[in-house]
């Protein structure tokens, strides 16, 4: 029995990185400071192949929607390189003061 548990533990630990990539956070729809801002884990992790630690926990904690509780979760902060703006600076990805409608998906679409 003890051996059996150890085997499970080993398989789990080796499978973890793969699991983490697949069990990403899905779609995160922010509601503050404005409604319906979409962050798609599918786009960032699966399609763009970005690693978790690129954003977690440097710019975002692991808990989803935690960032929007901060008062400085604003477009101005992002322009100053915080939150999404760490990458969306015009060099790594499109700057956060352009292409508004790509992330601000609108109330009509329900954020999806």
């Amino acid at each position, binding site marked *: 029995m003890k051996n059996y548990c150890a085997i499970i533990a080993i398989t789990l630990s080796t499978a973890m990185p793969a699991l983490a990539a697949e069990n990403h956070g899905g779609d995160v729809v922010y509601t503050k400071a404005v409604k319906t801002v979409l962050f798609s884990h599918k786009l960032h992790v699966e399609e763009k192949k970005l690693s978790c630690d690129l954003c977690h926990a440097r710019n975002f904690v692991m808990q989803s929607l935690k960032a929007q509780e901060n008062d400085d979760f604003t477009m101005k902060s992002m322009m100053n390189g915080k939150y999404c703006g760490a990458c969306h600076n015009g060099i790594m990805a499109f700057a956060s*003061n352009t292409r508004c409608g*790509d992330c*601000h998906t609108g109330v009509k679409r329900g954020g999806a």
Partner: protein
Amino acid sequence: MKPTKHDLSMKNNEGTENVPMAERRHFLKMGLAITGIFAGGTIFSALSVIDKVFASTDEFTDKYPYKPHYGMMLFQNRCIDCERCIAACGETNHVPQEGYRTRILMREMPDAVGLKREFIPVLCNHCNVPQCTRVCPTKATYKNPENGIVMMNTSKCIGCLTCQLGCPYNARYFNEEKHAVDKCNFCFDTRLSLGEKLTACAAACPTGCRVFGDLSDKTSDLYKAVHQLERPIWVLRPEAGTRPNVFYSKDVTAVTFK
């Protein structure tokens, strides 16, 4: 061989009356207006109209007939469909759930390079040649002679909805409570007449998409936004010929945040 020089001032202007519409449009697309024809119709004299508002005739841009002449500019690329404007409008003007005074249209282009989705806020264009007031049988809707706002006199409205058919912008809805057609009036009764400078939607907009102001005041933000050579501006459905006072544009440079 040197090209022939034509000194147009020495030639007889044959008048632009007979220039076909297609030809005028062709020139307008290049940002030119035909000012004269010379030499049996072979030479067109043209003038740049890029600094003019395309929707309005020349004499109209030079002189705004109302004081104040209210208008709005919408920076289309700034709209994020947060719908704070719709909420603020509904609260201020008691717009029922099924009605609207302003709406936000959406356009998605998945194959576009860069931005793939944009929002277009629409409202009453407060036209200078409004079709709705023209077709109203009871004169319940009228253009205010002082400020040019297209207003409703709900007590005169018989609910025939002819104005809805006349409006090229679908800016009118029937309000069951008032039993009359209701529409945007730039918050005249609820804000402007009470001393506020902005409409509810413009005040609520977090991105600076909506610029409201007085076109007859050269120092106003709206006047400065509309009259720029570097910035192309347009109106919705110019072919309706209603000469709207609601203009659209996009920021040429990236958006700045306060």
